């Protein structure tokens, strides 16, 4: 895989701080998510991982600092002004956050309600395509309550990618799932990364998810995931790891760099 660094990052945080009353959630956080890059954000519960995604989506406003999404500063934008920016970002929420009262097809096609330029037929075709990608085309008419936890996450992935976003945000997509289902979800994430070359921020507390993203790639010919060093060629999956500790970055680098760290805090994630 060729590494191309675009001058305009997909997401950029510039000294972003956020406080909830007296508690500091993020302190002067700065980073760039380059186009086509994946950052896996690791950290314990309450370290501010999910907050980072909500700030990127404009669902929360920082107390100080600037956030850029696709080159546009979003910190001062209203919800209405955010709409064109959000169309370029797909977000998978922690528990899926599917709308209970809508069917799977309605959930996935929900975004087209605000996109009159996409006709009904085109919307239906894209909904089917997105559901086919997550292998759930047969659930079109079912309600979220009729699906298993893993299926709900997959529908949430389909809903996030149906508008063909440039950036994907995943908030703990494997949390609370059994290992087989979690692997299936991670396979979808790698497939999505390599098939569309989207930039991604993946929040997780499972270090194995970070390793899975970093050391696998999707081979479209064989239609399966393969290890990056499968045929002697070392492919760059453009996956970097970020470890959050009490609202600050404790580590930022590759999987190999992380594995070489001797910091006791980082060691806790590895072993």
């Amino acid at each position, binding site marked *: 895989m060729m590494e191309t660094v675009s001058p305009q990052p997909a997401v950029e945080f510039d000294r972003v701080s956020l406080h909830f009353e007296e508690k500091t959630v993020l302190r002067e956080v700065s980073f760039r998510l380059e186009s086509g890059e994946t950052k896996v954000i690791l950290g314990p519960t309450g370290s501010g991982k999910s907050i980072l995604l909500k700030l990127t989506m404009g*669902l929360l406003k920082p107390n100080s600092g600037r956030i850029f999404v696709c080159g546009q500063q979003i910190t001062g934008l209203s*919800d209405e002004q955010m*709409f064109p920016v*959000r169309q370029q970002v797909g*977000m998978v*929420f922690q528990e899926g*956050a*599917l*709308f209970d009262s809508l069917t799977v097809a309605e959930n996935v096609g929900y975004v087209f*309600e605000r996109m009159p330029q996409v006709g009904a037929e085109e919307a239906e075709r894209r909904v089917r395509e997105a559901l086919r990608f997550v292998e759930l085309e047969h659930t079109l008419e079912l309600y979220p309550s009729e699906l298993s936890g893993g299926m709900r996450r997959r529908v949430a992935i389909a809903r996030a990618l149906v508008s063909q976003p440039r950036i994907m945000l995943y908030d703990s997509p494997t949390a609370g799932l059994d290992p087989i289902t979690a692997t299936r979800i991670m396979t979808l994430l790698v497939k999505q990364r390599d098939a569309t070359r989207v930039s991604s921020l993946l929040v997780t507390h499972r270090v194995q998810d970070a390793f899975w993203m970093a050391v696998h790639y999707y081979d479209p010919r064989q239609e399966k995931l393969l290890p990056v060093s499968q045929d002697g060629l070392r492919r760059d999956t453009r996956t970097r790891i970020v470890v959050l500790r009490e609202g600050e970055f404790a580590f930022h680098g590759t999987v190999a760099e992380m594995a070489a760290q001797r910091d006791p805090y980082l060691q806790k994630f590895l072993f």
Partner: protein
Amino acid sequence: MLGLVNDFAKERVLAAQEFTELSARAFQNIFRSPHYLQDTIVQMDRIGFGSLPIVVLTGFFTGAVLALQMSKTLTTFGETSLTGQLVMLSLVRELGPVLTSLMVAGRNSSGIASELGSMVVSEQIDAMRALGTDPSKKLVTPRLIATVVMLPMLTIISDFVGLLGGFVTSFFIIRLNPSQYWYSAYHALAFEDIFQGLLKPFVFAFIVALVGCYYGLTTRGGTEGVGRSTTQAVVAASVLILVSDFFLTKILLWLLD
């Protein structure tokens, strides 16, 4: 101690500010697209038609018991023929709007708060915003319009059923002549009474819908928080209805005089 009072006061002022902002936004949304007509109709069905059984029952028995109480007092003066008049005026001016609104608040403010609260804790509201939908347009305004349209209608039904309840008591228990009951009831009614009786539910509808939405959308703390919001919504809506009824009556009496 002073710090605690200070924090409590700040919290209340902030809540009042948030409530005012939500109300203003919900009202402005009526004139801004997109309009969610289908959601409004669904809410009309849930709030209006869904509340019909309790409103009819409340109205009927309120009218029936009013007639019973009034007749007892009126017998002392030998004026039982005025039972219809008293039932009519009490119902149309006061009991119809207030009791109907309290019933609808108990049923719908809680329902709205728990529904929206569940959506908040399961991140559905965030997902809605992320997908480009303004929750105040999609969730608050349809509920507000539906309540404003349906509550006055429910009050009219409740008034009529209450009058019927009063008649049943008057005819079967007090043994009053039916024409006497209906004649005194009909002739007691003036424009001012109808105006009062319909303006009140119109105002109370804002309280029922907006209080439910406010507590729902400000839910914090998982499923326990949803339960807390639901209870708070019913208490706040009921108290606000009763307090505003006093001031509204005072203003209306002053204006109509």
